[in-house]
């Protein structure tokens, strides 16, 4: 009787170990879709504020976009050029007083800087730093409302980092230029805002 009980307990322990192993395995497999980083109420407020800013930008942008010639999925280079130029100019006219820090407000910038610091620290993240810093961004002038230089390389945004930053709609992108972090309009490449010395 006693022996049976021991076997039962032993089996139970084995099952528990197995189940926890599977759970850990699943968590590792879906690293990219992991739950967002736990944030403090103050950080949450900062992120909410940022997302609100982004939302109102998208509303304005989509209004402005209506002025640009339609772009189909099988456009000619001339049509692409015309669309891009019109969108770029219209965005600039629609936000004549745009200035640095409108989106990356101090509280948002603080949260992002801390996130970047965590993500980029440690020996295993050396490669990540190298990837960002080796990007050839000479010729990029950091100026809000003006486009990112077409001849410059684009930094690859680390996939692991993107899961931790506030999510952006498809019209916007984060981008690095050296230690600076940019918020860029995806289609026109107009710099919407930037944060100097974002990377540690």
């Amino acid at each position, binding site marked *: 009787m006693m022996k049976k009980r021991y076997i039962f307990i032993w089996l139970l322990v084995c099952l528990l170990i197995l189940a926890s192993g599977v759970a850990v395995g699943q968590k*590792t*497999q*879906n*690293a*990219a*879709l992991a739950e967002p980083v736990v944030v403090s109420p103050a950080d949450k407020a900062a992120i909410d504020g940022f997302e609100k800013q982004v939302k109102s930008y998208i509303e304005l942008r989509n209004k402005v976009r209506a002025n640009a010639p339609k*772009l*189909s*999925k*099988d*456009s*000619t*280079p*001339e*049509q*692409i*050029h015309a*669309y*891009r130029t019109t969108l770029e100019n219209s965005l600039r006219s629609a936000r004549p007083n745009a200035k640095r820090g409108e989106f990356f407000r101090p509280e948002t910038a603080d949260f992002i800087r801390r996130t970047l610091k965590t993500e980029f620290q440690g020996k295993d993240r050396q*490669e*990540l730093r190298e*990837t960002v810093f*080796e*990007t050839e961004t000479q010729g990029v002038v950091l100026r809000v409302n003006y486009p990112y230089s*077409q*001849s410059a*390389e*684009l*930094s*690859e*945004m*680390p*996939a*692991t*980092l*993107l*899961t931790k930053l506030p*999510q*952006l709609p*498809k019209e916007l*992108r984060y981008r690095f230029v050296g230690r600076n972090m940019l918020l860029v309009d*995806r*289609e026109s*490449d107009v710099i919407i805002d930037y944060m100097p010395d974002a990377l540690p």
Partner: protein
Amino acid sequence: MRRTQAHYFIFALLITAILFPPAYAQRLTAASAPLRLTLPVKEGSVRFAVIGDTGSGTAQQRDVGDMMIKYHALFPFEFVLMMGDNMYGGEAPQDFEKKFAEPYRALLDNKVKFYATLGNHDQALQVNYENFNMNGKEYYRFKKGNIAFYSLNSNYMDKKQVQWLEDELGRETAEWKVMFFHHPPYSSAKKHGSDGQLREVVEPIFLKYGVDVVLTGHDHVYERMKPQKGIYYFVSGAGGKLRTGDIDRQSGITEKSYDRDLHFMLFEVAGDQMYFQAISRTGETIDSGVINRR
């Protein structure tokens, strides 16, 4: 004394010419090797070519284009996968012509379709370009025969894209699953090398859903990796730019590599076999083989 100086000058010229051969001299050597096809050309097979990091608009890019056209006559591939960096520098209308349409004109005229992916030198609006067949999307899937091709945007692998990939692969019914994107999860090149942070995110998904082959560019060399956890990885990033001598031959992951000239690749899929052949700018076969589906 003067004669000695002249001798020095000619000697220096000769050395310079050997070390840095001018573009026209390099073009003259093109097509020096006889065409040799290692692919079986089976009836009903899916045939395609692969090029990467092409958009330089240089004479060397045009040489590769010319060689592709010659091989197309022997091996009529239906479409071409582009590994990104489709256009370096500006993207004005004339750049689309010089860096893409002109070098591959004969293929385009022959109704060969090009499917592009975005590299770190490519503007987002390329997805709308008629000849890149991206359907206005930065990441997309298409099917040919028993193969599903997935083009990913490795510049910006955000949550949305990862979720899309998981969803699509979850309902995939094609026998072969081929990924193509710009940054290589595995590479022995010294300039960039393996993209560890990208690999961290995509490799578990590839393994989970049984991806067979991953085609990439970014490093301006040719490399076929030893299978990594059962997946075949290729770097084909020298269709328009070359980084001579960039392969680290001690990396331990290389099966075959080539960094002496530009190249392109040919693929043929017949049932459970995928045949491949990598060809240099001058027509030399630099690698070939067959992958058996798991």
